[in-house]
Every structure is written in structure tokens, then in C-alpha cells.
């Protein structure tokens, strides 16, 4: 096939204050290819693609698309020259209908003398949705009626219906279930078949290798290399990303360890309306108990219920000593920690310093007869942030400036600092690069050794198989299967109970 360069990036550069986010990156992407773009958190891949899409201004250098130099000032202009992006977090607007979201910024075809023809817009949107095979989403509905995943699908339609020359998919798959992912891959393949181009950003290296033609690697804002996907393995990619060999000790390697008889937490008949029904199980000392299932199966609510954070919970959560957990302060006081899947809203306060985030749950322990010693708080935060090897300037830095992996380190630092004995970790490695992932797994093993108990809720099956002593699979709000750690346990075994 005759490939010609579609996009040429020359000496692209970007600084945020003292951070050199993208450092002199030059690369070329052909028409009709799916190009993976990988790198650790903070390697500059999102910044790079967001400059291309007009979300950030270009700090230096230039993009040339189809032989023409780009002068993009915002996302709409990028759209007009044929560049579209599906972003990592929520990219649809609440309070608008599905159709209004799809045609946001492109309402002209439906405007007659300044009046919007809503009917025509809805019909066109519905036609597109049907064409993509998402007919169950209704164009005239408010977008708020749909869950995170469906909203992502709407976003996909919005980004691709105009047939952009370049489609940027920025870590979209972390928000999607297996089905949603398959839909997305199909669309990516269609774009390629049409001799257009996809830039695919993901942390899931298996996925990257399976669905791209070539992969470009960034590290610390610098361009490292571009390789053909068929020529390399995941380990090769990891090595390029990290710049050194990643050890084989990724997951736990021990099998056949006996789980302690000692029960530390008992959950009995816990229900939350519309979420979970009659959940009962026991957590043992030193156990890593995995929860798996499809993203809507209710397992995320189980974490909240244990932590006393559910709004309308029935049933009981009791500790070994008989303490009943019914609200968050009680849970924290009795040594339960919780890291939410919704990290930015529930696990940490974004507009607050690392220091205050780390000390917040431990504030009563750090107070001396109700009085706080500010220096002691700073030392406490410094110690635990450093123990977690959080990448930061100092503890006064705001959490909003940190990358996903570093945010999660702050979350873990606060609970390690609190010394919690029972850790409920919901999607602990969501959107996190290999190096930090490895660190988190190592930490979990270490905590287990210390006799702490962990509930790990995860949508990633390999993670469950690799780390958990025991796995509970949920489906439609109830526990649908239980597995013990075993080397022969396969992904298929678990999936069978999920769907």
C-alpha cells in the first residue's frame, strides 16, 4: 500500500511553569494507520496530543497536516481542519440532550434564520447513533440519563461522525467495559480502512499492541522511538517507556498460602437500593480479597458500603471486636481505609496541598489535646509522601498538578500514614502506568505480610488473578461466584461468572 505522511510534528515543545512537559518532539504519522502513543504518567503524551487538538496552545515547533502548516487556536478550529479527540475524562456536557452534545459547535446545518430545528437535529443524531449501532441511546434524551460508558459512546459519535483526518483516542478505554471497547476498536479499524488516521493513547499495553500498526514512545517529555507493533512485545514497550528493565515480579508469584482463619470484618446482608442486594462475606486477616465483575455489577458500591459511605444502606458491617460500621468517621477511626474509583472527587481534594490531603484522616491522631502543631503535620506528610516515592516539588504542591499515578500515591500515603488495618482499594491501578502499578502491587504484598487485610475491587481480570487470595465475582448486584487463588485459574473462568 502506498503510505504517505499525513501528520508531521516538528520540534513540538511545551512548558508548564518549571515543568518541561513536552521537549522537542518530532514524529511523522502516515495516512491509514493506527498509531499508538505510550509513556508513563507525566511523559507528555496527553499534552502532546492536546496541543494537536487545540486544547493547549503550542509552546514551540509546528504541526503539518496534509502538507499544510496548522495554526489552531482552539478545539473547534482543530475540528474544522479535521482533527478530533475523545478525551480521558468526561467530555460530554450535562444538561444538554444527546443530540445537542453530538452537534455542539456545529449547529449551523440545523439553524434557520437563527432558530434551531430541534426535530431535524434529533433525527440526524438518531440516524448517526443507529449507524454506529448505538440505537438504544435516544438522541432526544438528556445526556444525564445515561451512565459514564454510554456518554463515552456518545462522545465517540461526536468525535467521529464528521470523518476527521486524525482521530485522537486519549485513554478512553479505561472508562469502557469490554463491549464498549470492542465498539471503539471497530470504529478505529473503520477509520483506518478509510485511509484516515488514529492516534491511540492507552496504558493497557496489550490493547495497544493488538490494535495498532505502530507505537511511538515518549519518556519525560522526550521522544524515544517508534516501533512496529508486530515486531515487539509488551516487555519491549515497558523497557522503552521506563528506560530500564522491568523486573518479572509484577504480580505475586506465591501460590497455596493458607488464608488465616481469623475474621477481621464481617459483612452481612448488605443491600443498597438499585445497586447491591444481600451481600454477605467475611474478610480474613492478611487476606487480599478481590472483587470482580462488569463495571455496573455493583462491586464499586460494595466498597462504599463497607466504608459507611453509601447513602441508603441496610444490613450490617461489623469488625472482629463487634464494632458496627455505619458512617465514614467511624470506619476511619476503626482502621478502615478506602480509595475510591473516582479518585479526583472522592479520594483526594484536588484543590488542596499534598500535605493537607495526607494529614486529613489522621488529624485527630496528630493533635495533642485538640491542638495541632503545624510543623508536626508537615513532617508527617513529608515522611509518608516520601515513603510512597511521590514525585513532587514539596508537600505544599497542590494535588491538582500531579499525574494520575502520583495522585494515587498521595491517596495511599494518607492511609498508610493512618496505619489502617483494612484497606478497601477500588480500582487501585486505574489509569496508572506500569512503574507505579508495580509499586502499588509491591505495597499490597508488603501490607499483606504485615497482616493487614485488603479488599481489591478491580475491573482488570489479570490484576485479580495476579494479586488476590480469593476472588468474589459479582453480577447484577449479587455475588455470583467465588474462586480461590490458583495458578490454573483463568480469565475465562471469571468471565463466565460475570456475564
Amino acid at each position, binding site marked *: 500500500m502506498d503510505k504517505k505522511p499525513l501528520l508531521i510534528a516538528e520540534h513540538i515543545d511545551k512548558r508548564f*511553569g*518549571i515543568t518541561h512537559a513536552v521537549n522537542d518532539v518530532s514524529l511523522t504519522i502516515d495516512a491509514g494507520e493506527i498509531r499508538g502513543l505510550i509513556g508513563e504518567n507525566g511523559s507528555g503524551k496527553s499534552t502532546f496530543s492536546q496541543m494537536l487538538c487545540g486544547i493547549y496552545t503550542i509552546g514551540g515547533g509546528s504541526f503539518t497536516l496534509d502538507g499544510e502548516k496548522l495554526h489552531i487556536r482552539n478545539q473547534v478550529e482543530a475540528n474544522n481542519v479535521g482533527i478530533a479527540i475523545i478525551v480521558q475524562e468526561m467530555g460530554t456536557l450535562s444538561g444538554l440532550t444527546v443530540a445537542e452534545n453530538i452537534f455542539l459547535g456545529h449547529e449551523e446545518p440545523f439553524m434557520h434564520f437563527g432558530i434551531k430545528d430541534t426535530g431535524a437535529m434529533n433525527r440526524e443524531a438518531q440516524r448517526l447513533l443507529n449507524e454506529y449501532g448505538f440505537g438504544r441511546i435516544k438522541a432526544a434524551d438528556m445526556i444525564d440519563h445515561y451512565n459514564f460508558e454510554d456518554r463515552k459512546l456518545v462522545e465517540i459519535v461526536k468525535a467521529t461522525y464528521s470523518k476527521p483526518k486524525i482521530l485522537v483516542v486519549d485513554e478512553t478505554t479505561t472508562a469502557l467495559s469490554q463491549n464498549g471497547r470492542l465498539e471503539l476498536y471497530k470504529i478505529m479499524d473503520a477509520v483506518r480502512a478509510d485511509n484516515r488516521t488514529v492516534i491511540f493513547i492507552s496504558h493497557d499495553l496489550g490493547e495497544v499492541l493488538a490494535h495498532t500498526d505502530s507505537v511511538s514512545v515518549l519518556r519525560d517529555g522526550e521522544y524515544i522511538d517508534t516501533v512496529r507493533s508486530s515486531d515487539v512485545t509488551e516487555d519491549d514497550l515497558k523497557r522503552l517507556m521506563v528506560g530500564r528493565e522491568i523486573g518479572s515480579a509484577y504480580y505475586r508469584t506465591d501460590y497455596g498460602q493458607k488464608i488465616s482463619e481469623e475474621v477481621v470484618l464481617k459483612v452481612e446482608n448488605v443491600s443498597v437500593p438499585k445497586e447491591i442486594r444481600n451481600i454477605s462475606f467475611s474478610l480474613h486477616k492478611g487476606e487480599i480479597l478481590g472483587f470482580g465483575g462488569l463495571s455496573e455489577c455493583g462491586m464499586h458500591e460494595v466498597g462504599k458500603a463497607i*466504608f459507611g*459511605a453509601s447513602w441508603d444502606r441496610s444490613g450490617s458491617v461489623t469488625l472482629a471486636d463487634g464494632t458496627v460500621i455505619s458512617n*465514614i*468517621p467511624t*470506619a*476511619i*477511626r476503626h482502621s478502615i481505609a*478506602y480509595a*475510591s474509583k473516582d479518585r479526583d*472527587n*472522592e*479520594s*483526594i*481534594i*484536588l*484543590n*488542596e*496541598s499534598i500535605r*493537607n*490531603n495526607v*494529614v*486529613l*484522616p489522621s*488529624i*485527630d491522631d496528630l*493533635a495533642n489535646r*485538640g*491542638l*495541632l502543631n*503545624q510543623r508536626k503535620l508537615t513532617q508527617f506528610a513529608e515522611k509518608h509522601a516520601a515513603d510512597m516515592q511521590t514525585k513532587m516539588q514539596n508537600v505544599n504542591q*497542590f494535588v*491538582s498538578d500531579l499525574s494520575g499515578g502520583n495522585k494515587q500515591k498521595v491517596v495511599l500515603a*494518607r492511609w498508610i500514614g493512618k496505619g489502617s488495618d483494612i484497606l478497601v482499594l477500588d480500582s487501585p491501578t486505574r489509569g496508572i502506568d506500569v512503574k507505579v502499578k508495580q509499586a502499588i502491587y509491591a505495597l499490597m504484598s508488603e501490607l499483606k505480610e504485615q497482616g493487614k487485610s485488603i479488599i481489591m475491587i478491580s475491573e482488570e481480570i489479570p490484576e485479580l488473578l495476579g494479586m488476590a487470595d480469593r476472588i468474589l465475582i459479582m453480577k447484577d448486584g449479587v455475588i455470583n461466584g467465588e474462586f480461590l487463588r490458583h495458578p490454573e485459574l483463568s480469565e475465562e473462568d471469571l468471565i463466565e461468572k460475570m456475564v
Partner: protein
Amino acid sequence: MNNETIREPSRFRDKLRAFFGSDSFKGLLPFIGLVVIIIVMNILTQGKILTAKRLRLLLSQVYYPMIVATGVFFVMTLGSIDFTEGSTLGLASIVISKLSFYSIPLAILGGILTGAAIGAINGFFHVKFKLQSFIITICTMYLFRGVCAYMTTETAVPASAAIKALDQNWLKITITVAVLVIAWFLFRFTRIGNDVKAVGSGETAARFSGVHTDRVKFLVFVAAGALTGLAAFVNVIKVGSITSTAGNQLETQILISLVLGGLPITGGAKVRFSNIVVGTLMYTILNNGLVMMGFESQTQQLIKGIIFLLFVALTIDRKALKVIK
């Protein structure tokens, strides 16, 4: 070698830009503003504002707004807003005046309880019905303004001679300083300050960190009301009789003062206790200067509006911007 010399100026510019964009510079802005306002006002009034007599007058206008601002500071740190100070001050002043004929301590207590009750109403609706403080306090502002007007329709409400005899600077200074010191202590050295800031920076995350968010919000509104009630006492000993205009527009005065003092209207992590003192002083000096320069009250409002607008535009933290709770 060559490279180095070429890069030097741009690096300097970077540093300069980094400094002016930095939080430490933004934190300094109110202090710089205070000094600038003092100097400008001093020049424009030909030095009259810095005379001993003027300063005494100026000081006498600072006490009760500063006490009120201390309470509102906590409300705004939550990321909420309170528009009831004016009507609370009016109503509490009436209660204090009436009770002052029986017993002074009873009058003070009555004033504080009146304020606390109004704060409790605000807090209750804010917490239990999840209504935005903005909406509730505008409603309660009108409500209690109405009550005030009703109670002062016939004639102004006089206070007893005994309470007027207390109009002495040492007492007012003592009360104001005591309020500031206690509030500063609670804000900086106890869990209260931490909790209030945490709710302001991110309520959901604060709840998940074990902060009793509802309790904190309710108590802050009650405390703000109670402090306004205490301020009403200082007001009564100064003015002696209460008319329907008592505390009129106090809420906007306090809001402007705190924002001039550098308090981000979004609340949260970047508030500083000094915002209260610097802001109230700035507002009072500005106000007095404009009066002394002989501006009409309409022109004064115009100028204050422009300065307020400039300050908000300069100091607001656009990253944390969201609807005020």
C-alpha cells in the same frame, strides 16, 4: 558558552513571570494593595487621612465590621456565602436595645442568640435541604429585613443609658481583638480550621476523609450568626438607638472587604486569616478617603465597584472556579 548567554534573558523573564503568577505573589497582593491605598488616599486628601483625629474615627468604624467579617470568613472558606449579616445585625441590635433595660449581660446574650438562631436557620436549610447558601441567605435576608422594618416602623428603638455608657474604645478594642485571636487560634491550631478548609476545597473528598461535612457547615453558619450578634452589641453601644436602616448593606461591605483582603470567593485551601484584617482596613480607609475627597455617595459606590471588580479579576483562582455553594 554561547548558548548560555543567549538563554539568560529568557530565563530571567521566565522567573519573573513565574513569580508574578505564583501564589506567594498573589498572597502579597492584598498587603501591597493596603499600602497603595493608604499612600494614594494620603496624597489625594493632602495628608488629612493620617491625622490622629481621623485615625481614631477610622478605628471606630473598624470594630464591628471586623467581628462580622471574622464569621463570614469561615462561611466563605467553606465556599459558601452569607447575605444575612445586615439584617441579622439589625434584628440583634433591636433585641439588645430592648433587653438593655433589664440587664447588660442578658442583652449581650440575647444578641448572640438571635444571631445564632438566624445562622441556624440558614445552616439548617443549607445542610438538610441541600439548598445553595446563596439562595437561602438572600431569602432570609429579606425575611429578617422585613422583621426589622416592622419593629422600627413606629419609631426608632432606643437603648438604655447604661449600655450607651459602655461606648469606650478599650472595650471595643478588647472585644474585637479577643474575637480575632480566638478565631485565629481555632482556625490555625485546631481541627476546625482544617475541616472548614477541606470542605471548601472539595466537599465530597472531605466527606470521604472522615470530615463531618454537614455538621461543620451547620456550625459555621451558627457561629457566623452568633458573631454578627456580638457585633450588634458593639454597634448598639455606639449608635444608641436602632432605626430601620441598621446594618443596611453590611453584607456587601463585608463581601467586598474580604475579597479586597485577598479571600478567594471560591474558598478552600488558599484562604489566609490575614484576609479579614487587611480587607476590613482597606475597605474602611477607602471609604473614608472617598468621603473626605468630597465625592457624592453615588460616585463613591461607582468607584468602590470598579476597585472591587479589578481586585476580583486580579486575584481570583480560575482553576478552582465553580459555582458558589
